[in-house]
């Protein structure tokens, strides 16, 4: 049975190893899709609707076509079809320069017949609202109902009850590199696309289907990419358009989304509104939970959220539905449905604990079935100094008040089969590890080098890792669901082990030892029973001549495991006169199985916490009912954390077992709940709406006074 061995046996795995691409990234040498410039390349731009709902009556491309420097203009939407949200694609151009392309899309004349629209959940649900989906009544989907136990019986046992409404607005992904592609045809049968994508092979297959080509005639390359967070799983309209423009013009075409388009159409985390009534027994058991909630994911569905979350409730009823609005659609976003659900649940837990007169951590201990989190509560509480929190919320003196809170999370991240990989040992001793996965900035490239180097007794820098290219024909799945590490690691390990085995078979006769007795370490192959028998790595591989060793790997169930529990503690300070909130410290205790690279694992946790922090204190999409437009489709009024907002983050890699578990998504889950509870502990008034901005804090304080 394959295993990753004991920690004591690992030379590299589990250590802190700097990212292999780090130097290239900070020096600017690393090429992102945005940086790809092909000889003779054209620039693509897309004309988008500024109207949220309209019939397309006419599109006139002629003026744009006549502009010097314009090489192609194509309609994207057909006349007679409907525009259903601001930002929807109308037409596209390819031109000699980006400036000409920008001018050209403004010369496309579009005749739209405006239709009534709704862009906020409240407007969509209002009596007499315009119906924007034929298949839903009142712009609302059929509610999904779940029942367990005996709700009324549960409430009958409750000593305390809380009834509250929690809300989280739509959040957008804000990938620092916007969605985009550079597409180039070699002839009309062979397409190469540089894509900022989370799915090299998914993008290849989509484009092959679009252009009716055999998959092996489409090559997709993603050397480095600047963030996807769930929003980049295929070429999308913009990728297909880039490829289309490239085919029409016979030139390379670069088409990257603008920041505005990125906010409008490239996905978002749906909103959540939940009205919940819950009860607990006098000895602190969560006993009954009744929740009605909704969210919007644009005109599509997909606005689910977790409710209840992580804690055990025996008697419950939940009713959830989607609300349709004329706004760009949701896409998966880092732990879809979890952070907003966790925020509501952890707020509710604190409200119940307070009614019971219980320490919120004690209340969690009673209701949390996860042994892992139980241990994390102890560790995290110690690290933040939980005993320092206000035992009476809001009881701190002075204008600036501090408080502490806790939140919890849960994720899968167990990976799955479907990755192919190859490890090659060349006669000069060089080693290549190749697979079709992609490194979104998570560090999987470095992890692959670590695994291969550990197996082959080399250093990570000795391994040349090739990822982010479909050409070697070694598919791997899209990087979503925190699955990449757990899917790729077993296959790389078994490929490296197989290559090693082949090399041992070659060398064993020379060393006059059975293959099973050979080991490799420190660039040397040796015989375990007679350490005088050794051969240097390069001398051994030198004998391969033209016959490089090249071995594939196998999926191995035993090398990975799903399930990642997490707990976070937050300390905040609230200026009660200005409503300004600073997060002082976050302690993130994150279950993650075997951390292949402790350094990049911590980095993932830091990144998740920062994203959760943004959702907790800053990020909110503002939709204007009068114009149907997003008012903050930029990075001035759509605020994301900067250096001033980022607190001390103590990322604790809580490695509970030696099997690989993905950790990309879970660290963003508990943050908003922990911060919301800390704010309450600081000021003694609860803000039940994200983000917790100065206006909401001041309004809550004013209500408390009144």
């Amino acid at each position, binding site marked *: 049975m394959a295993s990753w061995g004991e920690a004591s046996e690992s030379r590299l795995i589990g250590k802190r190893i700097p990212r292999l691409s780090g130097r290239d990234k900070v020096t600017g040498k690393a090429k992102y899709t945005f940086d790809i410039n092909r000889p003779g390349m054209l620039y693509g731009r897309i004309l988008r609707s500024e109207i949220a709902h309209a019939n397309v009556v006419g599109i006139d491309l002629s003026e744009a076509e006549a502009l010097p420097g314009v090489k192609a203009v194509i309609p994207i939407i057909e006349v007679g079809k409907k525009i259903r949200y601001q930002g929807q694609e109308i037409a596209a151009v390819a031109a000699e320069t980006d400036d000409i392309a920008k001018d050209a899309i403004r010369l496309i004349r579009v005749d739209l017949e405006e239709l009534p629209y709704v862009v906020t959940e409240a407007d969509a649900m209002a009596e007499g609202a315009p119906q924007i989906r034929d298949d839903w009544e009142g712009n609302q989907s059929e509610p999904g109902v779940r029942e367990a136990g005996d709700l009324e019986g549960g409430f009958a046992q409750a000593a305390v009850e809380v009834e509250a409404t929690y809300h989280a607005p739509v959040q957008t992904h804000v990938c620092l590199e916007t969605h985009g592609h550079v597409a180039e045809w070699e002839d009309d049968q062979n397409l190469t696309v540089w894509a900022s994508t989370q799915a090299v092979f998914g993008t290849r297959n989509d484009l092959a289907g679009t252009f009716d080509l055999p998959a092996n005639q489409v090559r997709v390359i993603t050397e480095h990419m600047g963030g996807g967070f769930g929003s980049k799983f295929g070429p999308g309209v913009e990728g297909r358009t880039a490829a289309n423009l490239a085919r029409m013009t016979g030139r390379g075409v670069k088409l990257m989304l603008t920041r505005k388009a990125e906010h409008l159409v490239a996905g978002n985390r749906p909103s959540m509104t939940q009205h919940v009534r819950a009860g607990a027994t006098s000895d602190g058991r969560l006993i009954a939970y009744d929740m009605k909630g909704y969210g919007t994911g644009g005109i599509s569905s997909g606005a689910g959220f977790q409710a209840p979350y992580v804690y055990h409730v025996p008697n419950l009823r939940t009713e959830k539905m989607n609300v349709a609005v004329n706004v760009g659609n949701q896409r998966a976003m880092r732990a879809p449905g979890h952070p907003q659900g966790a925020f509501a649940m952890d707020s509710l837990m604190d409200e119940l604990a307070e009614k019971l007169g219980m320490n919120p951590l004690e209340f969690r201990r009673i209701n949390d079935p996860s042994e892992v989190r139980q241990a994390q509560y102890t560790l995290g509480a110690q690290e933040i100094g939980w005993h320092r929190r206000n035992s009476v919320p809001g009881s701190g003196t002075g204008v600036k008040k501090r408080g502490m809170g806790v939140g919890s999370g849960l994720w899968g991240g167990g990976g799955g089969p479907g990755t192919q990989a190859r490890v090659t040992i060349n006669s000069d001793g060089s080693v290549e590890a190749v697979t079709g996965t992609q490194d979104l900035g998570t560090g999987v490239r470095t992890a692959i080098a670590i695994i291969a180097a550990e197996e082959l007794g080399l250093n990570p820098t000795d391994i040349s890792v090739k990822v982010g290219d479909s050409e070697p024909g070694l598919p791997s799945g899209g990087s979503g669901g925190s699955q990449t590490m757990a899917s790729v690691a077993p296959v790389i390990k078994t490929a490296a082990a197989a290559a090693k085995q082949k090399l041992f078979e070659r060398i064993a006769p020379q060393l006059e030892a059975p293959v099973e007795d050979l080991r490799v370490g420190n660039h040397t192959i040796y015989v375990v029973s007679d350490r005088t028998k050794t051969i240097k790595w390069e001398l051994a591989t030198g004998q391969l001549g033209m016959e490089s060793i090249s071995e594939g790997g196998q999926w191995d169930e035993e090398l990975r495991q799903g399930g990642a529990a997490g707990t976070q503690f937050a300390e905040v300070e609230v200026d009660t006169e200005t409503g300004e909130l600073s997060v002082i410290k976050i302690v993130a205790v994150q279950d993650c199985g075997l951390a292949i690279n402790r350094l990049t694992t911590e980095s993932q946790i830091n990144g998740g916490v920062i994203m959760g922090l943004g959702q907790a204190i800053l990020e909110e999409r*503002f939709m204007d009912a009068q114009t149907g437009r997003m008012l903050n489709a930029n990075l001035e009024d759509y605020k994301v954390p900067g250096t001033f907002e980022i607190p001390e983050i103590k990322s604790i890699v809580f490695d509970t077992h030696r099997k690989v578990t993905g950790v990309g998504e879970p660290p963003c889950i508990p943050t908003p709940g922990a911060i919301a509870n800390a704010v309450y502990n600081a000021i003694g008034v609860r803000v039940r709406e994200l983000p917790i901005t100065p206006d909401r804090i001041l309004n809550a304080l004013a209500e408390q006074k009144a």
Partner: protein
Amino acid sequence: MEKFSYVNASSLEQVTALLSDSGWGEVMLIAGGTDLLAELKEYVETPKTLVNLKTLPGMDGIEADASGLKIGALTTVADIAKHPTIQHHYTVLAQAAVSVATPQIRNVGTLGGNLCQRPRCWYYRDETTDCLKKGGDICYAVDGLSKYHAILGGDPVYIVHPSDLAPALIALGASVTIVGPEGEKTMSLEEFFTLPAANPYRENVLQPNEIVISVQVPPAQPNTKSFYLKAREKGAPDFALASVAGVFEMDGKTCKSASVVLGGVAPAPWRSKEAEAALTGKMINEMVSKQAGSDAVKDAQPLNDNAYKVTLTQNLVSRAAMMAAS
């Protein structure tokens, strides 16, 4: 952005000649460009000609002597922030300057551009929304989303003036020198800014053919304390949700005179005569400072989403007063 021709200015006469009889928007001045470029890129402005002021000789630099300060319009915000005399004797101005945007923007953004910058209102900055300020019929903030809008002096246009330097300079009693076809004139900076009731389309008295060349600040008084308090949602870059520029001449805990100017709450920097009256001649304690705070906002008329600014402004004014007394 639309195409434009670009002229490097060589003299003030040339600039005013280029500006003359073009009206607003045809010929525009560019200094650091940190505000203007965004307007051009969003097609909010589409000038035919840009006149680059940075090539004008002698318009940047800070003169500090017994007669006070003279700051050229092309002086960068960064240079104001780090000037030792300003830091020591005109603290409110140094604090306001360092609160502006980010180091990069402060390094290129100028004083003239800071005073003449256009509103940040999210309806105004959207090319396709034709609001009252841009010649349309309605102010969308009235029925729309108004979290960042005015609580004082709004009607009929509810922008807030975005400048951080302006409230500080007005609190220091600054004057501004303007050059037009008829030559040079100097006026108080407070009167330079106008409310929408007078002119909904512009934020100051500047005519299309005029240019700001410098700002003068009278000598700092002894026993004066000054502060710039700016509340915001994020560290940087962020505009003020509300700000207070306070200059207090103190005799121990007694306030001999006070100058209180609010930012981020009105379409122009808002001198709070009410707060000044509540403090002048008083021994400052918690009660007096609270009174000054509530007097400052007694005429506030919040829109749907910005009532919080009333509390915020009130608290900032009280805080500034308490700081003066401590």
